[in-house]
């Protein structure tokens, strides 16, 4: 057993002593966690965040018997004013100047949204007020909806979308109450949950931390495994082992143990950082979460073996890992939700084991709702492990070819 343990120790020592490896395995995930948490970590904590939102009222001139459009404007105006002394308002509201052409203003604001300077652009279309009035009079008629423009690439926009959605449903209810069609007393009270606003808040860092930990495991497996095996093979380090009585299975046992130990170190590192530097509240001390973490580490390690088996050289292995790295990481919901993707990208999400593991881990921690059935969440990663093991056992070359 001693040889297996020492091989594991070799793997860990090598990874930690080599600066480049150390950077990618520990520093990079930590760096990303710090950056993302600093940028978005305070999102949802009222008073400390501020979204730039544009409001375009195209219904200002038209006849609106009750003044619904003005009501919507009032609501957002309210949100743009500080609610408590010395606190920043939730929104900074951008509106057309007096006499400015609404269409021109809208164009300008949509450009700003695309460039990330606005989190959302809300448009009250012409005829909105009368349409709402009409709806109140006869329940059949189709209403003219408010239009909310969001940026699909901005996390701030995702957050703002959530909040704007809540605000609009509040307005909606208010309209129904005024129409006498809705009695608040009878209603199932739909509590508005402000992100980070209550006591049982889900901090962004709680959402982010599990993703970061799995990203660490992922990078570790995708680059670390083929890197270590192929470089050691090509530099004839492995060959030196093969002239001793040590066998490939024992080497593999030591290697895997070392790899999982490195993932463990990574986990502890990121967890402590998340908890004590960013105030993460999630607890990983539950069987489902721990099993998902282990399943993740093993799946990504197996994936690394798959790459090592298919690549002829270490450089080819690294190139393959590089090509797979970004799409697998970003088409997985690791950093942001994956709704609204075109079908062909969705297909990648569905075969990508990262998707299942990230969602599975977050579900087990209670920071996200389940996007896949439990059978799939476990079955897809296990399928990848089986496939990788099969290919690696047939194709992986343990010694340099002549």
């Amino acid at each position, binding site marked *: 057993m001693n040889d297996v343990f*020492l091989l594991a120790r*070799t793997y860990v020592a*090598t990874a930690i002593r080599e600066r480049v490896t150390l950077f990618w395995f520990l520093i990079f995930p930590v760096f990303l966690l710090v950056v993302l948490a600093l940028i978005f970590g305070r999102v949802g904590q009222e008073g400390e965040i501020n979204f730039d939102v544009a409001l375009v009222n195209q219904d200002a001139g038209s006849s609106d018997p009750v003044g619904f459009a003005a009501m919507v404007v009032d609501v957002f105006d309210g949100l743009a004013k500080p609610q408590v002394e010395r606190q920043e308002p939730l929104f900074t509201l951008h509106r057309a100047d007096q006499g400015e052409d609404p269409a021109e203003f809208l164009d300008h604001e949509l450009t700003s949204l695309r460039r990330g300077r606005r989190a959302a652009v809300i448009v009250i279309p012409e005829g909105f007020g009368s349409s709402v009035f009409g709806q109140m009079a006869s329940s059949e008629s189709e209403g003219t909806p408010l239009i909310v423009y969001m940026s699909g690439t901005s996390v701030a926009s995702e957050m703002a979308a959530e909040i704007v959605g809540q605000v609009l449903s509040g307005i909606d209810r208010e309209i129904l109450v005024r129409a006498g069609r809705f009695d608040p007393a009878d209603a199932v009270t739909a509590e508005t949950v402000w992100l980070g606003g209550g006591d049982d808040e889900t901090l962004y860092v709680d959402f982010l931390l599990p993703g970061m930990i799995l990203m660490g495991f992922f990078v570790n497996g995708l680059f670390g495994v083929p890197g270590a095996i192929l470089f050691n093979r090509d530099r004839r380090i492995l060959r030196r082992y093969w*002239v*001793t*009585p040590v066998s490939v299975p024992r080497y593999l046992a030591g290697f895997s143990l070392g790899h999982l130990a490195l993932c463990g170190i990574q986990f502890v590192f990121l967890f402590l950082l998340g908890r004590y530097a960013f105030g993460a509240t999630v607890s990983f001390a539950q069987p489902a979460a721990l099993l998902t973490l282990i399943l993740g580490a093993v799946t990504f390690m197996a994936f690394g073996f798959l790459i090592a088996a298919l690549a002829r050289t270490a450089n080819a292995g690294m190139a393959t890992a590089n090509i797979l790295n970004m799409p697998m990481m970003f088409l997985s919901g690791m950093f942001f939700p994956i709704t609204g993707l075109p079908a062909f990208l969705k297909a990648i999400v569905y075969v990508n084991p990262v998707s299942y593991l990230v969602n599975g881990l977050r579900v087990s921690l209670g920071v996200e709702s389940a996007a896949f059935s439990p059978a799939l969440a476990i079955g897809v990663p296990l399928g990848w492990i089986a496939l990788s093991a099969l290919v690696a056992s047939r194709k992986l070359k343990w010694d340099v070819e*002549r």
Partner: protein
Amino acid sequence: MAKSALLRVSDLVKHYGDVRAVDGISFEARTSSVFTLLGPNGAGKTTTLEILEGIREPDSGEIEVFDVRLKRITRAVKQRMGVLLQDGGFEPYLKVREVMRLFASFFESPVPIDEVLSQVALTDKAGALVRTLSGGQKQRLAVGAALVNDPELIFLDEPTTGLDPQARRNIWSIVSDLKGRGKTIILTTHYMEEAEALSDWVCILDHGTIIAQGTPRELTQDFGEETMIEFRADELGSGALEALRSCCKDFRIDGATVTMETEDLPATMESLFAWSREQDVSLRNLIVRQPNLEDVFLSLTGRRLRE
């Protein structure tokens, strides 16, 4: 009484595609001796060794080692042998002591690590990372890793290639020391002075076959009473040198070095001096010597070892 053979190889064959890298090699290495495979690059030395080290399987042939007949080297055999690979690497971020501990863990009864470290003169470097070692130190570490199980049979594949003269001497003294302790050493080299200095038995390989074998003395004695005369003549054209051909048994020019082979040294020397006065050339670096293994190889193949 002759010592018994620790390793016996018969009719070893290994192909790589159409190339017969090892083409029916047979030899035996006696206990407590240095057995050397000498030959140019591509002669089949390394392939033969790789088969005996257990990292390649022969296409055919038989190996008898430690009195057991085998088709291929087993793990039990590996427990009793030590291997220095020609181009093996070490984890660069492991410390010398950690490397030794790791290799010791692969064997059932390793020797204490400090003992091995002092044997290869790396005690001072025990805490150093492999990547900080010099070429000679790395090679001594490799030798140490090959000795960690106190093996009876030791393979050293080109142990001094690429080393400076001092580092080469260090390895030579370790090899002599091992032989003194009763170990059997299988050595490959393409340095004829190394083969001459260390070997009890030399096997000369070319194109995957053995073309001659014997003790270094036996092999060079096959030249009979011949003597070699060597000098440098970089300023002369080949036309002027051709005149020398008639006054010796064999004559060759290798770069700037002229080598003459003669059975009548006084007569040849006289002719040479007469020729040098006539041509008005100085015989720079003139050496008169006995034939060496290089000459043997050359006379057998028409080529030099280090080509």
